[in-house]
């Protein structure tokens, strides 16, 4: 048993990484489904065990291939890693169950094993990015998750999904290449690839112009992958036209992991002191965040497609996390992490509800969804609840993390940041109201095809679980806030 605990960090990644290809070999839809859900359960259990270990102050180190750290690749799980792992694997389990439903019945049965395989490889890549303590290995797993994401998006019903996947592929590859270039420059100046080692050497040698360039290119590259405001161009279409269950998965995991990598590199590898205080990166991030908070809701208001509208809302919400990272303080990082967790819960609930509605009515056009709430009560009420969380109404999870964010800003003396946060929240209230008005009050513009089709258990089960979690953590936020604070502390500890 003790042996298995030592191997947990690697099992977290290789279980989905190897079971994915196995699904394809089996080539059987039913078996592939069973494997997918079982894997998701195993992964959640592993992350829970890792979280349990880190809560007792343990840091898991794993040397791949048995080679000692700077020569071989190292996995490292501390409080922050475990926090992100539990978030993404929780979302992954719920999304996997949701995926079994009828939200995406356009994907042919024969294509299913490959679809499930890409799904597992995607989550394996994301987990690999989180646990790896080797800069180049992060790049490799970034590419595994990216490539499989392009495949997943291209399975969307609308031919526009192909265009969305293509555009994401081009932007994503440019971003990943910038990250690769940045890693190369760091290696050039230090001779190492291990993140802890890099941080130590940079701290001793001091930075030079090459390291500054590496920082700039890293921020651009990871900014693209995380959907940071001016680099978010791929996101609305990718979320909007991807299969419904894929949108659920991506919204709760992919951008979150990219933000985690940003946090880890900026705070630990480059050092918060250098990247955010010595360099003007804090100003850049805060400006991007403010623009995103204010402009993305306006784009959401103008949007006619339900999923794309919520994708714009994701761009807005990512801006809040970027702001937390840009504050450069432990409190700011904790707020960003809590918002990351809370937004995952809320947005996953919203996209699941959206997926149910779209699968039932066959349309994503907002104006065609008039009066749907009278047929699909459960989905519409969870959508409403999620919407309130997105606005940040007191009593919802969105409020808790936005409050923490504002108090972190006030601590730093930047009280004026409360203004864009408030303005952004009001703007999001506007688009949520528009949806509520349509779903409940407007008459149906066209006849719905199958309004009465009942909601299936694999759809309402994950939807109720995630809504219950969001409800509970909104009313009693002590547990996630403590976790986020611990995670941010472990970030600060590693930095010293």
């Amino acid at each position: 048993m003790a042996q298995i605990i030592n191997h947990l960090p690697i099992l977290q990644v290789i279980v989905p990484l190897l079971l994915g290809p196995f699904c394809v070999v089996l080539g059987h839809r039913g078996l592939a489904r069973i494997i997918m859900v079982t894997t998701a359960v195993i992964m959640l259990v592993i992350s829970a065990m890792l979280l349990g270990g880190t809560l007792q102050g343990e840091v898991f180190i794993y040397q791949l291939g048995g080679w000692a750290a700077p020569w071989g690749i190292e996995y490292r799980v501390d409080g922050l890693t475990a926090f992100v792992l539990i978030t993404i694997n929780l979302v992954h389990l719920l999304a996997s169950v949701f995926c079994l439903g009828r939200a995406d019945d356009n994907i042919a049965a024969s294509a299913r094993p490959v679809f499930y395989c890409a799904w597992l490889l995607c989550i394996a890549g994301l987990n690999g990015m989180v646990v790896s303590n080797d800069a180049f290995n992060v790049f490799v797993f970034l590419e595994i998750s990216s490539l499989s994401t392009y495949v997943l998006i291209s399975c969307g019903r609308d031919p526009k999904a192909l265009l969305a996947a293509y555009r994401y592929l081009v932007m994503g590859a440019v971003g990943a290449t910038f990250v690769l270039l940045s890693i190369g420059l760091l290696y050039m100046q230090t001779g190492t690839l291990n993140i802890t080692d890099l941080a130590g050497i940079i701290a001793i040698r001091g930075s030079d112009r090459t390291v500054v360039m590496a920082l700039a290119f890293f921020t651009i590259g990871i900014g693209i992958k995380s959907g940071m405001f001016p680099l978010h161009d791929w996101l609305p279409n990718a979320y909007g036209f991807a299969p419904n269950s894929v949108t659920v998965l991506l919204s709760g995991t992919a951008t979150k992991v990219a933000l985690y990598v940003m946090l880890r590199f900026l705070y630990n590898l480059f050092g918060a002191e250098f990247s955010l205080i010595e360099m003007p990166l804090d100003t850049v991030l805060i400006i991007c965040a403010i623009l995103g908070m204010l402009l993305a809701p306006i784009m959401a208001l103008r949007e006619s497609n339900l999923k794309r509208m919520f994708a714009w809302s994701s761009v807005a919400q990512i801006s809040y996390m970027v702001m937390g990272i840009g504050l450069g303080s432990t409190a700011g990082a904790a707020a960003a992490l809590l918002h990351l967790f809370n937004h995952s819960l809320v947005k996953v609930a919203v996209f699941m509800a959206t997926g149910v509605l779209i699968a039932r009515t066959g349309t994503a056009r907002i104006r065609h969804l008039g009066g749907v709430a009278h047929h699909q009560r459960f989905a519409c009420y969870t959508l409403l609840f999620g919407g309130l969380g997105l606005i940040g109404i007191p009593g919802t999870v969105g409020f808790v993390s936005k409050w923490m964010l504002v108090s972190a800003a006030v601590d730093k003396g930047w009280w004026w940041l409360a203004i864009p946060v408030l303005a952004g929240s009001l703007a999001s209230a506007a688009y949520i109201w528009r949806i509520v008005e349509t779903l409940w009050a407007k008459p149906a513009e066209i006849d719905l095809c199958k309004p009465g089709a009942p909601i299936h258990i694999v759809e309402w089960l994950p939807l109720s679980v995630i809504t219950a979690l969001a409800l509970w953590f909104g009313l009693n936020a002590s547990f996630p806030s403590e976790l986020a604070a611990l995670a941010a502390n472990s970030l600060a500890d590693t930095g010293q």
Partner: protein
Amino acid sequence: MSVAGDGMAVPGLLNYWVAVGVLVCGLIMVVDSRNMVKKLIGLNLFQSAVFLIFITMGKVSNGSAPILDPAVSTYSNPLPHVLILTAIVVGVATTALGLALVVRIRRAYGTIYEDEIADKPQVEPEIIP
């Protein structure tokens, strides 16, 4: 800085500068091309500039390829080679996937030019029967 005497250090930073130039060409192709295939080729150009930067940093003057041989004493750094082997393969995988998407897009829209897709009236299956 540049030891012209034995002609070894003459390239100086030239490799890096040319790589940056190629990188800029690639980036311009990616941003500017409306032809989706040309865009992917630009992406390849962009990536290979980064590969050149990696391989240049691994070079040691008068070194030899890192295959150990008793007759040789100086070797170039093998690690950048390993990293770039992986990166090249990742790059071609991305290209292949991108090209497959282009083939499907051409089937759906009848063109590989992005602006022509934008001009086309959208026949969107709003209601799936």
